[in-house]
């Protein structure tokens, strides 16, 4: 695996080759990613991603917050799938606390997570196709994404930075009419996916730009730490939702799309099929939504209902205590991973027994996936770099944290 050795600093002045700087502000890098390329004519000899332009030190900030105050920070990591980050964080804290979550809250979490996956994949599909030159898909995708964002707004009051999940459950009961709206969306969405596929899957120009481009073998993908559709596009069949289920995913029926080719098209087809599977999970969640409370029965952790706070002394005391001094979490450490739209999103939380986390580390899927870019692109054409970056589906906020 000599070609997997990381690229050292590129030096100019070598015969025939030229150093080209791509980014940090480049339309196809989906944020502020800088890529250093050594090119020989139109062939990429070496490639090195340069990241860190969006680094905000979220992990350090978390150490200064109470456990419940970290939830809004997790939205800001990956702004395309905020609810997945919320979920991963609260699952980790719940594991530390040993809390049991009522079924309705778990199903709501699954429902919203799959909507988030649809939202994220729609943005990916639109921008990826736009990078390669298919402009129309972008407009179609954003039409459906708008509806998903409106549903998020309905349930949490925010379009993007939802912060809807809480340690011990979810923040609020979904409003009247929310489930009908989701059902309506889940009803017509598969037709819309057909529409996207009509534009792309059979399109010969799309096939020329994606088939056989930026190939990666399964061995390379595993060695480089790729996860999610980037790994499944290379033929490795793993999905944490099915293989290490969390939040009652084991009660849902869904297929895990896997492609063997390992090229841009394979990753594209995996994600498009995931759109359909997510839609099916949404429908199952709607059909089987259990009745019951949406918060765990743990007054020292979960904020009391507004009504009880105004009528019961204990609730008022608990509310005051949680807001002013947080809740203590037993000492220990956990690593909780969920399948985000981009791959394995993991939270490693160390508690020292106080109300603030001692250390919060986010294992970001794109951070590891980005390492595969050099393997995909070296020895190929410069124009394929754009297709390869799009096919990894990077979010720079998550990479830099």
């Amino acid at each position, binding site marked *: 695996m000599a070609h997997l050795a990381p690229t050292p600093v590129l030096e100019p002045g070598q015969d025939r080759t030229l150093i080209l700087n791509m980014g940090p502000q480049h339309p196809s890098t989906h944020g502020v990613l800088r890529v250093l390329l050594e090119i020989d004519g139109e062939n990429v000899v070496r490639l090195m991603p340069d*990241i860190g332009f969006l680094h905000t030190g979220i992990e350090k*900030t978390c150490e200064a917050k109470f456990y419940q105050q970290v939830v809004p920070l997790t939205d800001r990591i990956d702004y395309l799938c905020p609810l997945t980050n919320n979920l991963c964080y609260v699952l980790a804290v719940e594991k530390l606390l*040993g*809390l*049991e979550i009522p079924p309705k809250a778990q199903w709501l979490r699954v429902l919203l997570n799959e909507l988030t996956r649809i939202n994220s994949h729609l943005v990916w599909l639109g921008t990826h196709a736009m990078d390669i030159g298919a402009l129309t898909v972008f407009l179609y995708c954003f039409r459906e994404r708008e509806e998903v964002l409106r549903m998020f707004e309905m349930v949490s009051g925010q379009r993007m930075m939802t912060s809807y999940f809480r340690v011990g459950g979810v923040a609020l009961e979904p409003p009247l009419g929310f489930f009908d709206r989701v059902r309506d969306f889940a009803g017509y969405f598969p037709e819309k996916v057909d529409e996207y596929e009509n534009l792309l899957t059979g399109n010969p120009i799309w096939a020329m730009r994606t088939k056989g481009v930026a190939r990666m073998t399964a061995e390379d993908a595993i*060695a480089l730490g790729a996860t999610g559709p980037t790994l499944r596009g290379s033929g490795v069949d793993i999905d944490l939702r099915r293989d290490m289920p969390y939040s009652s995913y084991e009660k849902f029926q869904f297929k895990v799309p896997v492609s063997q080719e390992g090229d841009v098209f394979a990753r594209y087809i995996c994600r498009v099929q995931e759109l359909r599977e997510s839609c099916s999970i949404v429908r199952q969640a709607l059909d089987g939504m259990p009745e019951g409370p949406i918060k765990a029965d743990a007054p020292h952790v979960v904020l009391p209902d507004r009504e009880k706070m105004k009528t019961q002394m204990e609730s008022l005391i608990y509310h005051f205590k949680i807001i002013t001094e947080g809740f203590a979490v037993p000492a*220990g450490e956990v690593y909780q991973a969920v399948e985000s739209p981009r791959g394995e999103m993991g939270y490693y939380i160390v508690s020292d027994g106080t109300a603030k986390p001692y250390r919060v580390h986010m*294992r970001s899927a794109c951070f*590891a996936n980005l390492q595969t870019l050099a393997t995909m692109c070296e020895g190929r054409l410069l124009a394929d770099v754009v297709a390869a970056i799009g096919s990894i589906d990077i979010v720079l906020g998550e990479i830099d944290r």
Partner: protein
Amino acid sequence: MPLPPAITDLEPLKSHPAVARLLAWNKSAIQSVKFDRDEMTILLDRGSSREACALLRDDAECAFNFLSDITCVDWYPAEPRFEVVYHLLSIPKKERVRLKVRLNSDNAAVESVTSVWPGANFFEREVFDLFGVRFTGHPYLRRILMPEDWEGHPLRKDYPVEGYR
């Protein structure tokens, strides 16, 4: 639901495939083990971390072929100060194990695992950048998230949250 107490004895955990494999290889490589909240943690001797990783990756019984994550915890002012944490995943067996190495602050260096998993590259650079832990044998140990000319390592506990102004 009260949490079950953590198991820290080696004896009841001997049957865990990773522990069994490491014990069969080198008894002194394991300093301690912990089974807490359904997660297995193995504290390794500092010198044997890379070989232990290679062993767990290649062994058919364990098959921890995927490196999920490398990170670090700073226990300042306690010594040994740094704890480098590896999270391994077995794709065929769907299992996880956590490996740890403890490092003193005067010689915070550990062998790099980039030769075992090339994907460790970015993770080790991140730990170097934010904690100042060095990884010997790393091919390109430079800052990755902070600017090249940054002074200090922000995730250390003696680094103020607001930064130095």
